[in-house]
């Protein structure tokens, strides 16, 4: 079974966001991690391979050279090979990224494609769906359980106020929600093996795309940071007294209850 995982390198969740002199998000000095939702996808891919008793897990990412760290982590967890497409210094939106991924994937063998349902940086939750659309295969988003047998995937996915069980024919794209699994830590042996596993690096030209074909549809106009919230008032007094005063303030001053 050929399993592909699309992953993204993102800022650490603890990263403090600041703007650079051009008013863009400052990337210097920020520690980078594998998008946590993609980690669920990698783990699920490894479990699928282990349960099937055979298979190959390939992790794919679009990003700069530093993205190798995230791919290498997936290799250390147990993925078999990695593909990095470095499109160079060009503006990308979700359309662009999905176009690149789909183009790379269309040249590969695959039975199932996994990814996180969203990235924690731009949180747009659309690249995986777009890839499925371009490849003309079905997508199931936000899965918390997955079983694969007889050329079909049966997944439990989150819906508003509950969950549903969906069956799709393979190949398909499935995106991971938290709760799907508990990702493993790379093992020490895995770390040692990872450096010997293949990491294929490609440019846009290698993929067979030109810049014009990945021109973004969405244009960022400006970035800003939220106004820092000001600390409000600490209500003094004994618990009973403070609680009473809080209730009054919520009602009379804030008018929110």
């Amino acid at each position, binding site marked *: 079974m050929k399993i592909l995982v699309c992953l993204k390198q993102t800022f650490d969740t603890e990263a403090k966001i600041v703007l650079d002199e051009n008013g863009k*998000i400052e990337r210097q000095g920020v520690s980078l991690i594998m998008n*946590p939702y993609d980690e669920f996808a990698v783990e699920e891919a490894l479990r699928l391979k282990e349960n099937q008793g055979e298979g190959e897990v390939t992790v794919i990412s679009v990003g700069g050279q530093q993205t190798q760290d995230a791919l290498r982590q997936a290799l250390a967890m147990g993925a078999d090979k990695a593909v990095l497409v470095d499109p160079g210094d060009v503006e990308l939106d979700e359309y662009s990224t999905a176009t690149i991924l789909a183009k790379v994937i269309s040249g590969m063998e695959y039975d199932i494609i996994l990814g996180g349902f969203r990235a924690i940086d731009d949180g747009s939750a659309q690249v995986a769906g777009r890839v499925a659309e371009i490849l003309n295969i079905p997508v199931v988003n936000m899965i918390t359980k997955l079983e694969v047998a007889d050329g079909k995937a049966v997944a439990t996915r989150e819906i508003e*106020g*509950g969950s549903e069980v969906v069956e*799709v024919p393979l190949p398909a794209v499935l995106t991971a929600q938290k709760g799907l699994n508990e990702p493993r830590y790379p093992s020490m042996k895995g770390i040692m093996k990872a450096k010997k596993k293949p990491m294929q690096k490609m440019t846009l030209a290698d993929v067979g795309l030109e810049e014009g074909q990945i021109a973004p*549809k969405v244009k960022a106009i400006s970035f800003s940071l939220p106004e820092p919230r000001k600390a409000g008032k600490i*209500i003094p007094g004994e*618990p009973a007294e403070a609680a*009473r005063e809080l209730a009054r303030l919520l009602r009379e001053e804030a008018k929110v209850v």
Partner: protein
Amino acid sequence: MAKGIWVFAEQREGQIKKVVFELLSEGRKVADQLGEELCAVLLGKDVAGLVDSLGEYGVDKVYITESDGLENYTTDGYTNVVTDLIKEHQPSVFLLGCTITGRDLAAQVAQRLETGLMTDCTGMEVVDGQLVFTRPIYAGKAFVKASCPEARPVMATIRPNTFTAEAKPKTPETVKVTPDIGNIRQVIKDIVRQVSERPELTEADIIVSGGRGMKGPENFKILEELADVLGAAVGASRAAVDAGWAPHSMQVGQTGKTVSPVLYIACGISGAIQHLAGMSSAKCIVAINKDEEANIFKVADYGIVGDLFEVVPILTEELKKLTAQ
């Protein structure tokens, strides 16, 4: 040329989502500014009766597509029908609520139409005849303003509670569409609904949330009692979810849900940056924590330094009295 502001009238089990009314209300303003029609797209089974409720919020036209095959949302079924409609009528804008369904549908439609999509937006304005959207990125630690200058329709999903639903009654024109649902590859085998009297976390006006200070799953009861008095949803911090005290569906924060309620009551939550990212757009924040150094007090409008097990039950009683008045 593309014309028309379209809103996806998401419904589930015969109920229009609250966010749809919010989008129609704001969409009305935009439509008037641009001199375009405001239309709703309603899909489902036996949903014609919902048109009136859409008319309450000033919609000019409702496209209704009814079919047994549309009773439950499926990615393919809804994508096929909605894309066909858009291809036929060429609206300039297509807005959806940033719900699980809205987000799922939007990505597929946007790609099939090869257009741009801005998700989880918290602001929309017309600048020089272009719609400009504001979206939080890095879980609210920054914002980006973005537009889709050329491709049409401009697509966006809008976070619930971003706009206020304002009634502007109108009798909309209804257009019945016979759907071609096409091939649905996602076969729904089962739907499990969690029965809850409480509103959904992302749509709730008030959220009562618990963290590590709750000390155990059994103590969430006192939050539920407070939530019941306020008609609020109950949330949890990652610490509480990771400890197994609350399901992940209740998690608020960077790897959970992002919420913008009117009132957010944080109990025993220290206020890690990842949690703040998920709730700091709340209009009013209350923090109850015994650690006076807790980060949460830095963003709280009202804070009580004290034992939540003492404070919360009294607060519940007090609010019960006040709201009964």
